[in-house]
């Protein structure tokens, strides 16, 4: 015996082009919806990962000191302020602090970079504490320096590529004319570490004439600890500024919230258009089969049978369209990622569109819910058709 599902499928198959176009409309809406939900999820995950990749959640600097390499370069290597290395002891006493790592940033003018010269930047780090904070740093070649006073350098991937350096090669610090031996080249991380040249802290303090001084102290906070309380305590230290990466994250999230509202609005519009498409298709199909439905009723079909039949058609369209849309979103997630990356003011590294099982289920449920809602009116209308009037073709034509 032929089932209601088979009848519904056959009905859709009879008007293949119309059914396919509706299916495409639903698939596109599902694609937009799942991609945007994936973006919401992926952006935050990537941003968190980027911030975790910094290795520390808080940074202490002398007041007015630029806290990352790009700012330092923009300011032409000037504006660096220094604090005593002994600040580490004061910070380490706080129970919320798990680890600290001292950094000495240094910038020198290189007259032989471009037409009018440029800035070369160096990060003096303590290999043990720095690598513990950043366990994700992997070496493409070589290793960290073993001696804190050695004239050795570890280069980020892009810095090494620009300088065409390999392990065993030498680099020269302009102005100082001091040679360093490259002992390690890092894998690409997608962070500012890629463009950084790391040298041992003690060696950096010596050649840049900054004994016992640092520019930055990276702090890793213990898990589950309220970092705001720690921040308040650290603000009591004289002449320092605290940069909380949670604040940085919050600022970035605020920046993109407008973009998120815009894209979510587009998603809602796309879903509404698809909903109207479904209503149109099913309703047209009901009108076209007006007499047929009348005959079905004459031979014993109850209003609820007709209602179910029409609703199953909606169900088939929405399920297939939703699944196709999700497949499309999964296939095109890389392209979506590139497009979003192109338009956003700041995009973290890693996948920006993250589609997981939960999102897939939410999308299918949403598409199904909206589809079934759209099918309600046509199904109800079909269920109310009076057999005799339908066969005569008088009503609703």
């Amino acid at each position, binding site marked *: 015996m032929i089932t209601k599902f088979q009848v519904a499928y056959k009905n859709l198959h009879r008007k*293949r*082009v119309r059914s*396919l176009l509706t299916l495409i409309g639903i698939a596109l809406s599902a694609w937009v919806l799942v991609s945007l939900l994936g973006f919401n999820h992926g952006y935050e995950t990537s941003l968190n990962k980027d911030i975790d990749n910094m290795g520390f959640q808080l940074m202490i600097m002398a007041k007015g000191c630029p806290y990352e390499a790009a700012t330092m370069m923009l300011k032409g290597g000037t504006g660096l302020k220094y604090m005593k290395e002994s600040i580490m002891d004061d910070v380490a006493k706080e129970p919320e602090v798990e680890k600290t790592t001292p950094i000495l940033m240094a910038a020198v003018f*290189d*007259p*032989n*970079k*471009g*037409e009018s010269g440029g800035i070369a930047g160096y990060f003096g780090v303590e290999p043990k504490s720095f690598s513990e904070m950043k366990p994700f740093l992997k070496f493409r070649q070589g290793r960290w320096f073993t001696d804190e006073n050695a004239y050795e350098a570890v280069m980020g991937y*892009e810095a090494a*590529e*620009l*300088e*065409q*350096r*390999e392990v065993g*090669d*030498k*680099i*020269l610090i*302009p102005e100082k*004319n001091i*040679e360093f031996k490259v002992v390690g080249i890092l894998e*690409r991380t997608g962070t500012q570490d890629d463009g950084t040249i790391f040298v041992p802290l003690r060696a950096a303090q010596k050649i840049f004439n900054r004994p016992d001084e640092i520019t930055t102290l990276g702090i890793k906070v213990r898990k589950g600890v309220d970092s705001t309380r720690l921040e308040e305590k650290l603000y009591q230290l004289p002449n320092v500024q605290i940069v909380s990466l949670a604040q940085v994250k919050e600022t970035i999230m605020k920046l993109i919230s407008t973009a998120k509202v815009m894209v979510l609005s587009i998603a809602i519009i796309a879903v509404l258009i698809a909903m109207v498409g479904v209503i149109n298709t099913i309703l047209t199909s009901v009108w076209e089969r007006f007499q047929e439905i009348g005959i079905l009723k004459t031979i014993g079909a109850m209003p609820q049978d007709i209602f179910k039949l029409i609703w199953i058609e909606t169900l088939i369209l929405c399920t297939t369209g939703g699944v196709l849309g999700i497949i499309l979103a999964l*296939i*095109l997630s*890389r*392209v979506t990622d*590139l497009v979003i990356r192109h338009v956003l003011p700041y995009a973290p590294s890693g996948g920006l569109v993250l589609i997981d099982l939960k999102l897939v289920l939410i999308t299918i449920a949403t598409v199904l819910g909206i589809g079934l809602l759209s099918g309600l009116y046509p199904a109800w209308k079909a269920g109310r058709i009076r057999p005799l009037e339908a066969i005569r073709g008088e009503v609703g034509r």
Partner: protein
Amino acid sequence: MKSQSSLSWDIFKKAMVFAVRTTIWVLLLVLTGTTAAWSAVGCDLNDPDRDVARLFPESTGYKTVYVSIDRKGGEPLLAKIETRLGDKFRGIYETIDVPYTIYEIFTGKKKVGYIHGVNQKGQFGGIQVFVSLDLEGRIKAFYIQKMTSKYAGKLRDANFGKQFLGLTLKDFDHYDVVSQKASGKVEAIKNPAPEAEADFRAALRATKKNLVLMDEFVYLPQAVSSIPGGTQK
């Protein structure tokens, strides 16, 4: 004879197949393009508007085109370039997929020459050597954009660059980049910083590499027709 509905179904199927194929091609292009962007570093002028005007004073505009050995001819082209250079591409950065930026120089609508730069491993860092060439491949200007050396000032000096003016790839054919033996005009190029002999030799190798690449990308008859389009300023 086909019914109207089956005819429209056929058209629809063909359109769907076309759409799927196009999507796959776009995806492949995007994905391969992204991979290339992450794989190797090219050599661009730091400030093209300013540098083009300085290196090619008669220019009124330029167009930027990007070429790589990988896309232009693959392994056979690399082998040919290495043979003509007289040396293998070395290290982890001198690779087949390096994107080369060629600045096509115009006076009005007339093309008058090219500017092209290459990266070269130096003693203490990367060296970026640019040459501007007329349409016959003759060097009109020589410019070391970046060099790290105690003696970089001497090698970046205009007087050192002047020694390269008027030279062509033919002159460099007599220069062996491995044994560093030269004859003719290249032999006459004097090193202004004998203490930086390694960087001087690196600059000569970079110049020969630059000229060989330009010959393969632009000057050889088969190269002219296949140079890809770029952006004009």
